[in-house]
């Protein structure tokens, strides 16, 4: 056992740098054993150590007063009592060993480890209680502690540490975890700070600075210069007696003691009278100057007066006061450091200021804190209902503790006058005081923690409009619901000129008339709808105040209607915010407003392609700036989709081809997306199968094959459902830019690069893969092959199936009259090359890119574009 080994050789007296080094090596050994102790073992040691310190509180208090010649035995008894009992009580149930926090659902654990050796620097003012405190929190955290006492208090500090150590060792702690320097020197203190793992420095600025400059992490604390304001609404009797109680505690040596009182004009005399009545002495005339020069020398406290009684200090200053005087009070005016009374006095000497109002009092308090007690403590006496006064005080005071109606010496150390505030003998002053913490220091500051994070998968979702009605001829039946079930009164129709003029909206309008729903129509939506067009529509919309909006048309009319819907419901919403790209739609910065408060939203598609009737997406272009705002949020999802192929029968051939190939791209991209799920897959698979089976005939025969048309309408809607949940990929990112820069119809732009992107995605060694917890390794190729087989493609191997699938897709593309190179679409080489770099960057930055299974490099996108332009033979695209 290392314990017995170290017992034999342990260096008992540490009185030189050499013996200190030996002792610290021994401590390190002991601490390594202690680090393996269980919570149960540690808690037993903590208990016994706290008990022993508590039992010794009176002899230790006597020793401290005798050795330092400062303070009051009875008050030091309280401090020792507090440091053992309150610290034990606070941390008895705190977990400090092993797993201290666990959340299995999130796969998250926090494991606590000790830091090693704590360097405990102990001041003269609270030597035994601070030693007890630091030893106890070190034990609770399985650390060793080496104490550097102040030379003026070396014996009593050592005695306190020894009590704790003996009890800890009797309870099973490794020998020599708690050690102390017998005769401190600057060299030894510096050596100790260099060798320790963490410095817990309580002391003056010199000590704290030394700690921070040692290069080791330090929890240093700074000086206090606690100002008190007594507000007009305060209970003066409570205020004054609390201050006396606190300021006389251990003769004013606690750093959180009041140093100045500022009383507002209307209570000033009452405050003064109460102080006088309770045995405080107001210095008069010359006495004031005598006490000034006695207490403060060149801006520093005279060491001889620290922790002395008021009468003793008065005597030293040559001022005659009653023997039992509690506090010497100087009524002074200046709060600048040139006024001795404005300093921290570490004795029962108090400054008193008059303020005409609260603002003046705040100014004074601010200055006092800034010059001598930045970050420490401030105090206010006020009627508890005056939250306005408390709010103002707390907003202005730059102190780690803001105490209200509380004796600050006892209040600042916590748990005596407020039971949420952690008890501590070491009070952090934050960066204001040059400290690493502004809290009351406790066990958490002596622990290293390890977070154990398991790989978790994201919560997924499946979202669709609440109602999707489909089947040829379903529209009038579905519309019945608006009147008969929902009791809608006013309907606003958004459509395009062609549909309106050719009477496509007539059946809708007739139905609404029949239902007794008044209606109005905006029919000026152009392809690639603009913000200006939407704004025009919104004017009408607002004037009409509908309770239902029907968007009828292709993607453009439905997108424009979605935007108008947002603008109608939330006129103040900003497009820049709504269009901000996101990495994860659930973590996006902008939160969309709750839609549907004013109007129910119905979509009736007249082409089979975009799937916009079931998607949460809309794109709008600002015609003035040319900026495209792609909006995506489930709030934009229509409430009802009516897929009735009767509205789509007379689609022209070109539209059938382009929108049909768009559907195929939607389905393929959704299926290989990093966000594809068991819920989105079926829609994607079925959509692509329907496209292969029905697009050729729908393209060739149009309205003559209503069955094929209807299945294409379903395919479009199913693909929309799939990509609403699984999103798209690089194919769409690139197609968006081809469309924007070279005016290629969207579906054609998708088709012309489709098989090249599939080959690119299917690389088994991509340069980079997409980032999503569920997406564990590159597997796009396997997914394409699954899809191929579902669509009836066969082959001897996966590779063969994949190649056959690409061939089948290209065959379909060609059947629909779409070429396989960008050049053949009539884009001039010069124009293409001139815009290439910009297209690449914008495609890379497109919202669709994030869900792609392969995370693209811009150079790769450029190659893809070039290959597709010239029709170069496909390369492997392996990294």
């Amino acid at each position: 056992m290392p314990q017995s080994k170290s017992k034999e050789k342990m260096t008992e007296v540490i009185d030189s740098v050499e013996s200190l080094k030996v002792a610290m090596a021994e401590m390190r050994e002991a601490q390594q054993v202690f680090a393996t102790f269980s919570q149960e073992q540690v808690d037993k040691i903590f208990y016994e150590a706290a008990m022993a310190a508590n039992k010794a509180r009176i002899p230790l208090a006597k020793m401290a007063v005798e050795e330092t010649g400062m303070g009051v035995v009875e008050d030091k008894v309280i401090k020792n009592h507090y440091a053992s009992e309150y610290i034990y009580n606070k941390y008895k149930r705190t977990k400090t060993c092993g797993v201290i926090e666990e959340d299995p659902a999130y796969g998250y654990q926090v494991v606590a480890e000790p830091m090693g050796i704590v360097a405990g620097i102990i001041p003269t003012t609270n030597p035994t209680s601070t030693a007890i405190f630091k030893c106890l929190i070190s034990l609770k955290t399985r650390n060793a502690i080496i104490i550097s006492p102040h030379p003026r208090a070396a014996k009593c500090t050592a005695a306190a540490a020894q009590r704790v150590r003996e009890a800890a060792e009797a309870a099973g702690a490794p020998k020599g975890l708690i050690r102390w320097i017998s005769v401190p020197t600057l060299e030894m203190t510096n050596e100790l700070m260099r060798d320790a793992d963490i410095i817990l420095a309580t002391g003056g600025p010199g000590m704290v600075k030394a700690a921070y400059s040692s290069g080791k992490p330090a929890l240093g604390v700074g000086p206090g210069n606690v100002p008190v304001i007594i507000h007009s609404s305060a209970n003066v009797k409570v205020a004054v007696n609390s201050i006396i109680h606190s300021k006389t505690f251990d003769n004013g040596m606690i750093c959180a003691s009041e140093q100045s009182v500022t009383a507002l004009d209307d209570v000033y005399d009452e405050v003064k009278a109460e102080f006088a009545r309770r045995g405080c002495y107001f210095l008069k005339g010359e006495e004031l100057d005598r006490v000034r020069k006695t207490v403060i020398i060149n801006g520093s406290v005279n060491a001889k007066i620290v922790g002395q009684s008021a009468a003793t200090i008065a005597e030293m200053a040559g001022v005659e006061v009653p023997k039992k005087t509690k506090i010497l009070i100087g009524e002074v005016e200046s709060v600048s450091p040139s006024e001795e009374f404005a300093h921290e006095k570490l004795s029962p000497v108090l400054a008193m200021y008059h303020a005409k109002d609260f603002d003046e009092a705040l100014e004074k308090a601010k200055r006092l804190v800034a010059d001598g007690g930045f970050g420490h403590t401030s105090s206010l006496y006020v009627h508890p209902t005056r939250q306005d006064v408390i709010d103002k005080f707390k907003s202005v005071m730059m102190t780690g503790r803001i105490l209200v109606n509380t004796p600050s010496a006892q209040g600042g150390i916590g748990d005596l006058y407020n039971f949420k505030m952690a008890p501590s003998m070491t009070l952090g002053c934050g960066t204001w005081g040059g400290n690493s913490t502004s809290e009351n220091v406790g066990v958490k500051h002596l622990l290293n923690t390890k977070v154990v994070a398991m790989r978790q998968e994201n919560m997924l979702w499946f979202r669709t409009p609440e109602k999707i009605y489909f089947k040829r001829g379903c529209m009038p039946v579905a519309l019945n619901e608006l009147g008969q079930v929902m009791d809608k009164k006013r309907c606003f129709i958004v459509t395009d000129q062609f549909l309106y003029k050719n009477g496509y909206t007539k059946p809708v309008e007739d139905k609404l008339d029949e239902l007794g729903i008044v209606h109005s129509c905006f029919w000026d939506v152009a392809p690639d709808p603009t913000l200006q067009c939407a704004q025009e529509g919104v004017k009408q919309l607002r004037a009409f105040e509908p309770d239902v909006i029907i968007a009828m048309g292709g993607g453009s009319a439905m997108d424009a209607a979605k935007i108008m819907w947002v603008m109608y419901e939330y006129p103040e919403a900003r497009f820049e915010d709504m269009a901000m790209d996101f990495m994860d739609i659930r973590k996006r910065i902008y939160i969309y407003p709750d839609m549907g408060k004013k109007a129910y939203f119905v979509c009736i598609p007249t082409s089979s392609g975009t799937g916009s009737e079931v998607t949460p997406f809309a794109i709008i272009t600002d015609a003035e700036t040319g900026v495209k705002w792609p909006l995506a949020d489930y709030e934009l999802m229509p409430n009802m989709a009516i897929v009735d192929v009767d509205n789509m029968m007379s689609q022209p051939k070109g539209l059938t081809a382009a929108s049909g190939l768009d559907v195929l791209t939607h389905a393929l991209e959704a299926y290989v997306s990093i966000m594809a799920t068991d819920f989105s897959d079926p829609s994607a698979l079925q959509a692509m199968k329907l496209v292969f089976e029905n697009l050729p005939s729908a393209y060739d025969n149009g309205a003559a094959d209503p069955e094929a048309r209807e299945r294409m309408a379903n395919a479009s809607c199913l693909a929309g459902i799939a990509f609403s949940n699984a999103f798209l990929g690089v194919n769409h990112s690139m197609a968006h830019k081809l469309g924007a820069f070279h005016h290629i119809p969207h579906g054609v732009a998708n088709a012309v690069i489709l098989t090249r992107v599939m080959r690119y995605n299917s690389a088994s060694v991509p340069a980079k893969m997409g980032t999503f917890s569920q997406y564990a390794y590159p597997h796009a190729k396997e997914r394409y092959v699954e899809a191929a087989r579902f669509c009836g493609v066969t082959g001897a191997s996966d590779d063969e199936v994949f190649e056959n699938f690409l061939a089948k897709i290209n065959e379909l593309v060609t059947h629909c009259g779409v070429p396989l190179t960008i050049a053949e679409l009539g884009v001039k080489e010069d124009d293409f090359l001139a815009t290439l770099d910009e297209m690449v960057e914008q495609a890379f930055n497109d919202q669709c890119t994030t869900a792609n299974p392969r995370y693209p490099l811009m150079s790769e996108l450029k190659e893809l574009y070039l290959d597709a332009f010239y029709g170069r033979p496909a390369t492997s695209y392996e990294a």
Partner: protein
Amino acid sequence: MASMQEIVKRQNKIVYREGDEMIKVFNESKPVSDIFNEALNLARVAEAGINSPKPVWVKRVDGDWAFATTRIAGKALDDLMAEHPEKLDKYLKLFVDFQVRIHSYRAPLLQRQKDKYTRMIKSLTDILDATTRYELEMRLDGMPNEVEVCHGDFNPSNVIVGDDGELYACDWAHATQGSGAADAAMSYLLFELEDHTKAEKYLDLYCKKSDTPKQIVRNWLSIVAASELSRHREDNREFLLSWIDIADYQ
């Protein structure tokens, strides 16, 4: 040495003038290393470009060590202050401006101020108890490390107003590189030993000119008082002790 004219006699030296040179002749109580150190200090500050006499030689003269420098033709500022008390404010301003200018120079090989003060505090074993020395060392240790050229004994008797109108500083025995505020604290203390009002005037001017808060200078007073104490000037002992026994804030 017949042409040597005695100027002033101090505890451990006699200062002579010989033509364009000033010669300090030391008795045995002065360690030889101190004499060479003073010569070295002077060489360093002169090389740094500070207005000062130039070192000429160090050698034995009739069995005593002596150190010669060039002589600055002019008048010591303390003499001028005594002769023209009505011009005190003007002289003090010149004095402070010169001190602040000296602080702007750098001499990287001069000894470190904190080392010098530490040595002086440690040497006070017969006057200060270990606790007080510990407090002083702690306070000194926490002071920032700076590199301003500090004269270390900057008082009007060490400043010559040259006939050319320029100011010159002599007697660089205590020169260090460190904090100008510490140097000012020493000047303040030397004034205070002589005249409180003058001391306060000096501090006002210095802090304003160098844009230094007075607290920064005052923070050094216990340390410079201890260093002054180590020079064993018995008549100031009680006063210096009263400046030393202070507690750090808690």
